[in-house]
Structures are given as structure tokens and as C-alpha cells.
């Protein structure tokens, strides 16, 4: 075996190429990280972003050069793809980790019992203290009403699509439900604004916000419910129908209960999604610093809107409150997600992969 770098035709009599040791990628990663930050330090760049970018470039180039020398072109391409994929992953992790870390680190500073149980009544941006109780109430009520309106419509539409739907109507509904999932939240807000507020002359209220959230929630519920209903084995339906049970009772008593776990999951995820919507709430509910338990009249606060408004106030105290509320919001959404996924896993059919 000669010492020439392996070409596409391996040396006769051996299948094995020269391989780099297993620790090579890790070593290269370390080396390029060191090189990147070293250069960054030397050049005196403030932003660590460049250090990272530079390190990433070194890593990719270094891998390519070394592997070409040692293992050959094809292997080098493979290595480079591997390293690019790893770099992608690292690139994505950095901002997302930073987001999570900052929110938690800055949020816990103010998050306590007082913060959760008091409103912002009588406080301004110049003083610390206050809380998000009014915002929590607002969000819960707005989301609850949106759920009450969106879930029945969403469920029934999904049932129509799966159990009855055929022909043009079903196709149109499917398509537009798909498209509807992509409506920007602010457009939903504008629609309710143009009808409820501008045309019917209603004032701001939590319920107006719920209406906009309903528009955002319905398509999500339809899509997830549809998927779940499709998973229900046809034999169950046929068995029930064969016993003479009317179709509607079959759906209510056999199909829905079988899929209820998945449907619950879908609904909870939809709730988590709309609980974080700010734009329609900003247009329709306007926000308040007082507790307003009545969603049908007057301004109400809401968690995401509270985050935005405290951010806009721009003092250290209001930033603290904004982070505290953001952390609360994230925890709320994450808990909903985790519970929903737990239900999904627990109810998942044992077949499949």
C-alpha cells in the first residue's frame, strides 16, 4: 500500500481506506474554536458572533483540507457535509439557548408570589413592584372564550371532512383551512376591528380579542382533529354501523372517544399557540393596569401584551417586569405543550414506528 492519498479506486487487495481517528472532528472543532476566539481577541472584535462565525468557517475548511489529504475526495465531501450539518445545529442552538437562558435568568428576578397576585394599579415605570395578576386573568379569559368558540366549530368541521366530506365543498374547505392556518395574527385582528369595532361600533373588550383568537385557533383545531380522526381504524366504524347504530351515534360514541386523546392534545397545542398572540389583543383589548374580571366590557390586560407594554416603557424596572411576564408566559405555554405531548404519547397507537 503506497502512501498516496486514496483515490476513487482503492488500492488492490484492500477495502479499507486510511481513516482519521475517531476524535478528529472533536479535535478540529476545539482547534477552530480556539483559533476563532484567538483571532477575535487579537483583532479586538467586540462581537462574539464573529468569533463563532470565524470558528465555524475554520472548522469546515479545516475538515475539508485535512480529510482530502488523509482520506480522499469522496470521504472529504462526506466529512464536510457532516461538519456543515453539525455547524448548522450549533448555529441554531446558540440563539435559542441564549433566548431561553436570558428569559429564565432575568425572569426569576421578579417572579414571586406578589408578582403573580397583584396588578399594576397605581404604579408607573419609575417604580419597581407590581405584578401580572390582571394580565393572567385577561389571558385566561380571552383564551377560554376563544377555545369555547373554536373547538366546537373545529371539531365539527373535521368530522365533516373525515366522515362525510366528498366532492367540491370538502376540497374547498380543506384547502382554505390549510390557507387559514397561515393568516397573520394581525390580519385576524384587523378583520375583527373592521367588523366588530368599526362596523358594529363595539368598544374594546376581552371578548373582541377572543373573536380574533378564535379565527386563529379554528384551523389548527381542524387540522389536528382531522389527523386524529383519520387514525381511527375503519373496522370500528363498520362494526358499529353493522350493529345498526346510526352514523351520528357511531361518530359520537365510537369515533370521537377513540380519538379523544389526540384531539385533546391538538386543542391544548392550539391553546398554547394563541395564548402567546399579541397583535390582535393589542388592536382589540388595548390593555389595562387594573384587574378586569369582565371580558365583555372595557379594556383588559393580557400577558403577551403586558410584556410588550412594559418593554415599551423602557426603564430597568419595567424591563424586569417584562422578563418576569415573559417567563410566566413561556412556562404556561411549555406546560401546556408538555402535558399535551404526554397525552399524545400516552394515547398513541402502539403500531407504527
Amino acid at each position, binding site marked *: 500500500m503506497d502512501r498516496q492519498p486514496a483515490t476513487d479506486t482503492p488500492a488492490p487487495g484492500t477495502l479499507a481506506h486510511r481513516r482519521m481517528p475517531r476524535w478528529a472532528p472533536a479535535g478540529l472543532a476545539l482547534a477552530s474554536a480556539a483559533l476563532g476566539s484567538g483571532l477575535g481577541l487579537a483583532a479586538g472584535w467586540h462581537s462574539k458572533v464573529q468569533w463563532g462565525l470565524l470558528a465555524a468557517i475554520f472548522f469546515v475548511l479545516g475538515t475539508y483540507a485535512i480529510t482530502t489529504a488523509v482520506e480522499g475526495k469522496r470521504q472529504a465531501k462526506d466529512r464536510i457535509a457532516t461538519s456543515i450539518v453539525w455547524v448548522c445545529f450549533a448555529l441554531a442552538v446558540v440563539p435559542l439557548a441564549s433566548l431561553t437562558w436570558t428569559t429564565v435568568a432575568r425572569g426569576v428576578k421578579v417572579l414571586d408570589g406578589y408578582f*403573580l397576585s397583584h396588578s399594576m394599579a*397605581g404604579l408607573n415605570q419609575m417604580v419597581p413592584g407590581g405584578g401580572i395578576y390582571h394580565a*393572567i386573568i385577561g389571558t385566561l379569559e380571552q383564551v377560554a372564550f376563544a377555545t369555547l368558540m373554536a373547538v366546537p366549530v373545529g371539531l365539527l368541521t373535521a368530522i365533516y371532512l373525515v366522515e362525510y366530506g366528498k366532492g367540491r365543498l370538502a376540497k374547498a374547505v380543506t384547502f382554505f383551512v390549510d390557507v387559514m392556518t397561515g393568516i397573520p395574527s394581525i390580519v385576524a385582528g384587523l378583520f375583527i376591528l373592521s367588523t366588530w369595532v368599526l362596523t358594529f361600533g363595539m368598544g374594546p373588550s376581552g371578548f373582541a380579542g377572543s373573536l380574533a383568537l378564535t379565527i386563529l385557533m379554528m384551523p389548527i383545531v381542524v387540522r389536528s382533529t382531522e389527523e386524529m380522526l383519520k387514525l381511527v381504524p375503519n373496522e370500528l366504524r363498520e362494526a358499529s354501523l353493522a350493529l345498526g347504530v346510526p352514523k351520528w351515534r357511531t361518530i359520537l360514541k365510537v369515533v370521537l372517544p377513540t380519538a379523544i386523546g389526540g384531539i385533546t392534545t391538538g386543542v391544548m397545542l392550539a391553546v398554547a399557540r394563541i395564548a402567546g398572540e399579541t397583535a390582535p389583543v393589542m388592536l382589540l383589548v*388595548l390593555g389595562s393596569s387594573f384587574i378586569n374580571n369582565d371580558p365583555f366590557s372595557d379594556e383588559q390586560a393580557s400577558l403577551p401584551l403586558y410584556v410588550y407594554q412594559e418593554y*415599551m416603557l423602557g426603564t430597568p424596572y419595567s424591563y424586569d417586569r417584562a422578563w418576569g411576564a415573559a417567563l410566566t408566559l413561556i412556562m404556561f405555554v411549555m406546560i401546556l405543550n408538555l402535558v399535551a405531548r404526554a397525552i399524545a404519547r400516552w394515547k398513541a397507537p402502539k403500531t407504527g414506528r
Partner: protein
Amino acid sequence: MKLQRKNRRGMRALTVGAVAVSGALLLTACGSDDNTQQGAQEGTQQAGNIKCGGKGKLLASGSSAQKNAMDLWIKNYMAACPDVQINYNPVGSGGGITQFNQGTTAFAGSDSALKDDEVAASKKICKSGQGINLPMVGGPVAISYNLSGVDDLVLDAPTIAKIFDSKIKKWDDPAIKKLNPNAELPSTDIQAFHRSDESGTTQNLGKYLGTAAPEDWKYEDEKSWPAKGGQSASGSSGLAAQVKQVEGSIGYFELSYATGSQLDTVKIDTGASEPVEATAENASKAIAAAKVIGQGKDLALELDYATKAEGAYPIILVTYEIACDKGNKPETLDAMKSFLTYTASEDGQKILPDAGYAPLPAEIATKVREAVPSLS
């Protein structure tokens, strides 16, 4: 069999949901609007004599320039009159007038008097009357900057105009040096910040620059920022936050935001013997020269921006409360009258300087105190 099991699990899932909902309902029972315990740490002013009246919610919205004064008044008023809940939403003067004219709010806060078409629009809401301007609080618009090593800066109107018009771009520009012979000005870029939303503060600054430096500021005094260049931010607080964060920046907002964020303010060379500092007291001197130009109960003011009087700070702003002279909403009338009586009273006015605002001059305050009780 299998089906039944799933069924039961489904019910369990529903139960979980039900528990969550009832938990949420329980939550509505606790929690409170009472922040006095915490607010007490930050100067609770002697509330003074407050005559309560009315009950329920009093909605108002408008200028963010008077928000900090409003916050103080509302805190004191609500401490004395727990039956009334006042919600002042600082959406900006334009938004405040819009909401008032739509009948959503009982009164509006505005940095500028109603325009003719706005008065016309208000007649729909004020069934038998029209919207009137009641001056309630004045104050200096501070020119604030963030420049380490320089804690004393003097500027005059032409220089300010050139800075905000991106004509002067460095801190060590000869024009600035001439006014500050002793300061060590760095050779860094000036980052000017202005309001991205419509604002009476912008308008008042524009009026000042247009009056005191007509050569260098040829824009009309609009509510939206007319010049090019610089960066923008929304609201006085957003502007103050940016100036606070960015080294080498300059911006304009009510004094209370500058003191709140511990920012240095520019002294203005008005042509008087000494440069004038932005303080509530100095602003009062300039506001004292204001003339009432409103008719009847309307107390719209005309300010003198070109003042050269000793110690009079020329960049001033008077903000109004806008209500109907007749035909206010009956359900909030009493509460509104009681609240505005308090804000215009001596007790209400004397707490203003601590927050960076200027009390109304005695003559105008007297007229406001006569006007408020006559609202109907």
C-alpha cells in the same frame, strides 16, 4: 374491551381539562389591585383634600407627556376615593382625542389644543356642547444626552436644530465647542433619536426650533417627525430608553423621563445672561407668559417659545385635559369632575415639581378651577 379502555382514558383527559378550567375560575377570586404597600416606598405625597364624587370606572387616554403626572394624581386620588377606578392609557395625544371623539373615554389628555375639525367631531359625543381644552400641567421638554465624561452641556436653538437635522454629526463640532469651551468633547458620532409616533412633544420642539432658529429649522411644526436621519423610537419612554442605552446619543422628552432614567439634560442658551437649565421652576417662568386664546370655557393657551427672560426655559409644553363643556356622559360625570377638581387644586398642582412637571401659573389655574365645576 380495548375501546372501552380508551373511552375511559378519554374521560380522564376531559376531567383534566375540567380541573384546569375550575382552577382558573378559582384564580379569579384571589389577586388584588392594591399596590399601596409597595407604592408607599416611593414618595406618597400628602393626598391633601380630595372631595370624592361618583363611582365606578373612569376611562381616559391620551398624551404620554402627562402620564407621569397622571400616575401620581391617580394614585393619590384612588387612595382617597376607592370607589372610583381611573384608567389612563397613554396612547398619545392623537389617539386620545380619537378615542374621546368615539365616546370610548370620559376625557382625553392632549399636548395640543383641539383643532377645528376635532371640535366639530366632538359635537357628536357632547350632545349639547363641544369638547374644550383645560390646561392641567406644564413642563419642560428636556434635551437629553448620553455622553460619558460630559455632564454639563450648553446648546442653543440653531445648534439643536442642526443636530436633529443631521447637519452637525460629531460631538466635537466647532458649533458645540464654541458653546462649551471647557467641556472635553469626544470626536464621536452624534446619534439623534426622535419619536416614531405622532406626538405633541415633537410638535412643541418643532415650534420652539421654528421660532428660535428659523434659519436652521424650516420644517413645519407637525406631530410626526419631519426631518430625515437619526433613529426613531416609540413614546417618550421608548426614546429615553434608547438614549440611556446608546453612548453618544441625544433625544428629547419630558423632564420626568430624563430624571427617571437619570439622564443628563442640556442647558439652553436663550440669549439670557446665563444658560437655562431644564427644571420645573424654569419652565414655570416661561409658561407664566402664556396667553389664553380659547373662547368661553375653552382655555387653550398660546406659548411664547422665543422668550429671552432670565431663567425661563423656552422648550415647554402644556398638556390639556379634553372634556365636553356640556353633555358629558352622566355615569362618569361626577367622578370626572371630582378627579379634575383635585388635579387642578393647589394640592394637586403642588406635587408636580417633584415629578419634573411645572404647576400651572396662578392666573390660569384659577380659570381652570372655575371651569371644572361648571362641566355638565
